[in-house]
């Protein structure tokens, strides 16, 4: 087809499970992997005559995310019932928010290639309760576990501002990092704490005009990989379908598809015609929430510097690479530790290397956070300073860091104990240099006569001095002495 161009248009609906101890409207524990139907009570079982009561923490967590997403936070918000007919929510409705959500009209910045960012609009974020789990085991029946029923869930809806699978993935990853920084969700994909539903279509332009393909929604994706791949697959599928049939978007021809993880294809899901007639109405059991400016300010004060902003600050202020800054801001404990160590006087680049190359290797082995390593930011800053002051070599710093983790001792003590203090005493080093020069007349000859062998010979002599001092000589001082004697 001549001159056909297309643009992928994607909007995303994301469900994020908030990490409260108890459920949204009752005191049952939110607990993954408990015995089926052991974390339930008359409220979440949907028994008649019960009264749901809002979890204050869940509401405040939701407002925090709304603020972090730059949303407008209305001072009045309320609850609605959404009709629902599957056994994993036995009330036959889901408590959700319809016309007065707790936040709307915001945006999120997402990182793209080469330190660029893109702003994606947020239509709204509202609270609702999660459903339980239907398990389709063997035989002609299904099993229902209602432990998850009533878990607080934040639904975030973006504008259709994304134009590729990679952008959709970037938003999902950024949102995960954000809610973890805020401490409002574990956002553990394996436990289904984040679920995604992209809406996709194409704008196609070719000689005879501009066309929009029918929108498809892909249901219930729970990994970044599936999210990105399903969007890319769906874009290609819609393009092929348009070229073959010429089908374009019309009222009512939106379809729902599932993602087959094994075959890596989307599959059309059959739905009843009126399936989307949710018939929302205000929940008479729950009273509205009215914020005061004071309460809102108090919630606002719990926000922290958000990860992408922090990452960009590290690049600009400390000249770290985008990659290193990304590693440091992947989780809040590491970023906070780094910030503290910088405040304690450590050189940022040096601290970054210590943390990313040694610290995170250890935390990965021990499967813990950097705060669990019995090394304070101050001690690490001291260690970094010892390298800056040429008291120890950069290589020794890694060894000392590991020993600090093992023993809990301070870096200067360990440097002594492990005999890693560099010799910088020029007088002492000069004697060693003299010995080396005497023992290696050929190399001396190569240096003094100049030419192409000079550099290599110089390196060889430096190496010999380092060997004689068991690596404890300060290479900078040795180089100076060598240059002086052979120059």
């Amino acid at each position, binding site marked *: 087809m001549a001159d056909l161009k297309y643009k992928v248009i994607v909007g995303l609906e994301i469900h994020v499970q908030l990490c*409260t*101890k*108890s459920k949204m409207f*009752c*005191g*049952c*524990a939110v607990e993954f992997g408990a*015995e*089926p*139907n*052991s974390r*339930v*009570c*008359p409220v979440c*079982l949907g028994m008649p005559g019960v009264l749901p009561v*809002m*979890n*204050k*923490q869940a509401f405040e967590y939701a407002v925090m995310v709304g603020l972090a997403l730059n949303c407008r936070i209305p001072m009045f918000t*309320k609850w609605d019932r959404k*009709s629902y*007919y*599957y*056994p*994993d*929510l036995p009330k036959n409705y*889901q408590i959700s928010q319809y016309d*007065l959500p707790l936040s709307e009209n915001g945006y999120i910045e997402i990182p793209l290639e080469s330190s660029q960012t893109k702003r994606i609009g947020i239509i709204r974020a509202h609270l609702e*309760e*999660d*459903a339980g789990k*239907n*398990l*389709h*085991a063997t*035989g*002609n*029946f*299904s*099993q*229902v*576990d*209602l432990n998850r029923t009533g878990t607080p*869930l934040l639904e975030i809806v973006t504008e259709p501002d994304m134009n590729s699978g990679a952008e959709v993935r970037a938003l999902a990853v950024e949102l995960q990092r954000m809610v973890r920084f805020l401490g409002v969700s574990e956002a553990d994909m394996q436990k289904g704490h984040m*679920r995604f539903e992209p809406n996709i279509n194409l704008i196609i332009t070719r000689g005879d005009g501009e066309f929009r393909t029918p929108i498809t929604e892909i*249901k219930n994706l729970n990994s970044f990989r599936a999210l990105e791949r399903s969007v890319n697959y769906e874009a290609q599928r819609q393009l092929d379908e348009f070229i073959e049939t010429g089908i374009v978007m019309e009222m009512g021809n939106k379809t*729902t598809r599932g993602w087959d993880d094994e075959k890596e294809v989307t599959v059309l*899901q*059959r*739905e009843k015609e*009126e*399936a989307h*007639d949710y018939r929302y109405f*205000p929940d*008479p059991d*729950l*009273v*509205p*929430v*009215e914020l005061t400016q004071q309460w809102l300010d108090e919630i606002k004060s719990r926000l922290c510097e958000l990860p992408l902003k922090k990452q960009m600050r590290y690049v600009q202020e400390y000249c770290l690479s985008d990659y290193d800054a990304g590693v440091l801001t992947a989780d809040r404990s590491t970023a906070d530790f780094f910030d503290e160590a910088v405040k304690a006087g450590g050189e940022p680049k040096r601290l970054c290397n210590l943390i990313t190359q040694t610290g995170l290797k250890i935390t990965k082995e021990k499967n813990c956070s950097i705060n669990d390593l019995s090394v304070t930011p101050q001690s690490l800053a001291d260690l970094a300073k010892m390298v800056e002051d040429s008291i120890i070599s950069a290589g020794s710093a890694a060894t000392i860091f590991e020993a600090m983790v093992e023993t809990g001792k301070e870096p200067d003590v360990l440097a002594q104990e492990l005999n890693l203090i560099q010799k910088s005493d020029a007088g002492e080093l000069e004697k060693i240099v003299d010995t080396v020069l005497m023992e290696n007349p050929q190399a001396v000859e190569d240096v003094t006569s100049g030419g192409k062998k000079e550099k290599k010979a110089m390196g060889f002599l430096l190496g010999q001095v380092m060997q004689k001092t068991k690596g404890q000589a300060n290479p900078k001082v040795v180089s100076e002495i060598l240059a002086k004697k052979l120059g």
Partner: protein
Amino acid sequence: MARRIDQQQVRKVAKLSRLDLTDHELEEFTSQLGAILEYVEKMNKLNTDNVEPLAHCLPVSNVFREDCVKESIGTERALANAPERDESFFKVPKILDDGSGA
């Protein structure tokens, strides 16, 4: 006066509610629902130009609980009224067309 609701609409609402109505019930509910709607229709005669939309009928807001875990009732009691169970699960007819999930 035009009917407030016809059988077609009642049939649709019944279907959405997963209710299987007999022809007799359909007729009965159509007239009952019509009478209710007609009664409520009287409200439309009021002038509400200067009345704020009502989100809730009680003049109360912000009823919260702290995020504290309370004891659940336990699997056995939870399943006590279930028509059928399969070990610790509720057992239900096989769900076809599973569009479930929040």
